[in-house]
């Protein structure tokens, strides 16, 4: 007998419809899965066998069982196929009503005792189901809220037996806890009030947030560069519906969503370690192409601490996503596109030993060593940073000063500035233009640097709610140009 269920495999972050066919015929006992299953998928055999018997359902007594995953040429990865395989098998052995599976998709991993386990990517599988015109998706109870986000009715079950009794019509779809609105609320993001002193760095952060400028902070260790970067998401606008869904989808595929979570509303913050591989940063991998940190930071902040310590190929790999807002990972098996529109914040020391700019310590680096350290960053990469900020060590007076302004008012200014920038571009006044020209003559500033300063000046004017870009805005923008040593 033949039965069929529908599920969706992940190709990158796109769903691909997979038909799971189960065929039972008389013959020697055998259980085969065909259709390019990977190792995890191949092992579904054992989980399905054990799960079905734990659910006190019947294993087809005598027969040769063949499971086909179609289309056959697409590689099937992961354990999300357990549930559809089990259900197809039960339908093929007439343990489920003939039409029970119509209008349903299934996605989930089975435990040996028949319980269902959530699998990363439920949101994407659910979107596939919606596009395929399927109304309901059978999945682990934990995946329910994620599935609901895609506009598909989740049938979240805790156990295979529960799924079967639902399909037999013995019970309705189980109730789900309402999804919490935000996966993570702003309350979980550290607040700017914790950063004492460093007024200038806080100002740079505010400008970066308002104009989506990439920011590079250079300074000795212990000056709060990381602390500042972590507070950037807290002053960015929350994600609107469409970007939020995109981010949630990527995080779903990467298995980063907490069980029972709703949409990701707070811009994500990703801080990969500098030992990260190219595949880890950009996306890829040998088994299954997975989104990299640049995609996990989509619509959020990618923070690279110790920037020059990253592998050169990884850094150069950042250029495409910075330019295009997506990455394309090509493999023999195919090409996958991941969105990667992130704001880049990076931190570095001024020299390898870290003492430069410290004040109290004397740098022991030879000029050649400093040069090599800085040469690791190509001009092309440095050009992507609109704001370059030297972060010197704050003195005790600053640290003992009054508590700093918290994130909320800063965030409001950022939101207002973004509104203004959206409404209409701000023109430079004549005097502002003259100042910029004078600066290009006098300071080490390239033509591209000029454009960069112009952009930043516009953001500063928007923050000041000015009607046009005035000389003082250009002057402040000029103060965030690369330190001369970085351009020499």
């Amino acid at each position: 007998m033949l039965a069929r269920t529908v599920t969706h495999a992940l190709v990158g972050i796109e769903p691909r419809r997979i038909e799971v066919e189960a065929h039972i015929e008389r013959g020697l006992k055998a259980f085969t899965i065909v259709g390019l299953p990977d190792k995890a998928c191949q092992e579904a055999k054992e989980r399905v066998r054990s799960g079905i018997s734990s659910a006190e359902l019947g294993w087809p007594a005598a027969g040769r069982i063949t499971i086909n995953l179609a289309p056959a040429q697409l590689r099937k990865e992961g354990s999300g196929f357990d549930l559809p395989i089990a259900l197809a098998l039960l339908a093929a052995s007439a343990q489920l009503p003939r039409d029970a599976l119509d209008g349903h998709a299934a996605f989930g991993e089975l435990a040996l005792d028949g319980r269902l386990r959530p699998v990363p990517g439920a949101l994407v599988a659910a979107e596939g189901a919606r596009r395929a015109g399927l109304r309901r998706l059978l999945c682990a109870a934990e995946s329910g809220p994620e599935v609901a986000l895609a506009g598909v009715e989740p049938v979240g079950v805790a156990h295979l037996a529960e799924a079967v009794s639902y399909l037999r019509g013995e019970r309705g779809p189980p109730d789900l806890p309402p999804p919490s609105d935000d996966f993570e609320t702003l309350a979980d993001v550290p607040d700017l009030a914790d950063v004492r002193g460093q007024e200038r760095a806080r100002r740079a952060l505010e400008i970066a947030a308002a104009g989506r400028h990439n920011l590079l902070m250079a300074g000795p260790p212990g000056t709060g560069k990381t602390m500042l970067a972590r507070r950037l998401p807290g002053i960015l606008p929350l994600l609107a519906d469409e970007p939020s869904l995109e981010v949630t989808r990527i995080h779903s595929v990467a298995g980063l969503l907490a069980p029972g979570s709703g949409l990701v509303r707070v811009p994500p913050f990703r801080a990969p370690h500098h030992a990260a591989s190219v595949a880890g940063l950009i996306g890829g991998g040998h088994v299954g192409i997975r989104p990299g940190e640049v995609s996990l930071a989509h619509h959020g902040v990618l923070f690279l601490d110790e920037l020059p310590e990253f592998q050169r190929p990884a850094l150069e790999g950042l250029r495409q996503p910075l330019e295009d807002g997506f990455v394309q990972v090509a493999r023999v098996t195919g090409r996958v596109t991941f969105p990667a529109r992130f704001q880049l914040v990076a931190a570095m020391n001024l020299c390898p030993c870290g003492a430069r700019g410290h004040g109290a310590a004397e740098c022991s680096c030879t000029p050649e060593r400093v040069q090599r350290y800085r040469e690791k960053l190509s001009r092309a990469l440095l050009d992507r940073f609109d704001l370059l900020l030297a972060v010197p060590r704050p003195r005790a007076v600053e640290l003992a000063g009054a508590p700093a302004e918290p994130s909320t008012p800063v965030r409001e200014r950022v939101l207002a500035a973004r509104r203004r920038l959206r409404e209409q571009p701000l023109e430079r006044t004549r005097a502002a233009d003259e100042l910029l020209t004078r600066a290009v003559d006098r300071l080490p500033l390239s033509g591209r640097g000029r454009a960069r300063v112009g952009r930043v000046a516009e953001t500063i004017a928007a923050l000041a709610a000015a009607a046009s870009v005035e000389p003082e805005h250009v002057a402040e923008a000029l103060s965030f140009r690369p330190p001369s040593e970085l351009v020499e």
Partner: protein
Amino acid sequence: MSELATAVFAAHTEAHLVDAPRSTRFATFRKTFDEPGYVRDLHARGYRWIARGDHAFPHRLAAIHDPPPGLFVRGDADLALLERVSVAVVGARACSAYGASVARTLGRELAAAGVVVVSGLARGVDAQSHRGALETGTTVAVLGCGIDRDYPRSHAALAAEIARGGLIVSEYPPGVEPAPWRFPARNRIVGGLTLATVVVEARERSGALITADLALDEGREVLAVPGEITSQLSRGSNHLLRLGAVPVTCANDVLRVLGVEPAPPAPPRVLEPRLERVHALVADAPKTADEVALGIGERVAGIAAALVELELLGLVEQADGLYRAAPNVGSRS
């Protein structure tokens, strides 16, 4: 007329030669050496050669006890440039922001007074003094490798700029790669070409001190810029001061030693009161933008803008986030 052969032979054999050696090996080399052909090639590449015996060979350099057999020259300027009043500005490669700023200002103001600034094209003080001099006048770079080598590589653009109005000279033929032992030899030419040597910043054992020693041996003046007594980077230069070197607190100190009329002092600049206050704070001691803002009692946004205006006026310099007053030494005196 064996100087060119000597210079080329020295490069071949990696030896330091001042005079033609009396070896059979050199005699053999000389027989096969095509001097006119070599000079033709040199000219074809836009380079010149002045032998020690030539009339054009700089007299001051000829007067030292071990002058090079001759000089290979790159650049557009007249060779008479090497006879003009000149001063060597040398110092640490790993200089501090203070050293870099002083070297640049000295270069600029000395060149403005018509003095030729000579240095070694190295990183740090050398490069800064060349750069400063290029802003207002001419400069000469002395290399420890072939004049076509542009060492260090990152200074290729600087070298090209120097060659446009000034000269790049070396006792080594084109093609000779830099080697550590060639640099002290180069330093004797820096000291020998000039009337005085100014050491801006030098560690205890620094190449700049070799230049100073050689200059002293040849009876030239040695000057030094005082540095912080707690900094390793000033050990060498402060040591020179203790030995009796002339302290340099402004470009005029150097000009006085050279007997050159200082440029008339620039009219005092009138700043608006707010900029004046910011400048005064920074002139007091180097400060971060945050510290200046704290001192003035204003938001840092406006202060950063004010500091940039002062930078554009050439009154303030910034390195690694620290703002310091530009050593506007010429007009102070």
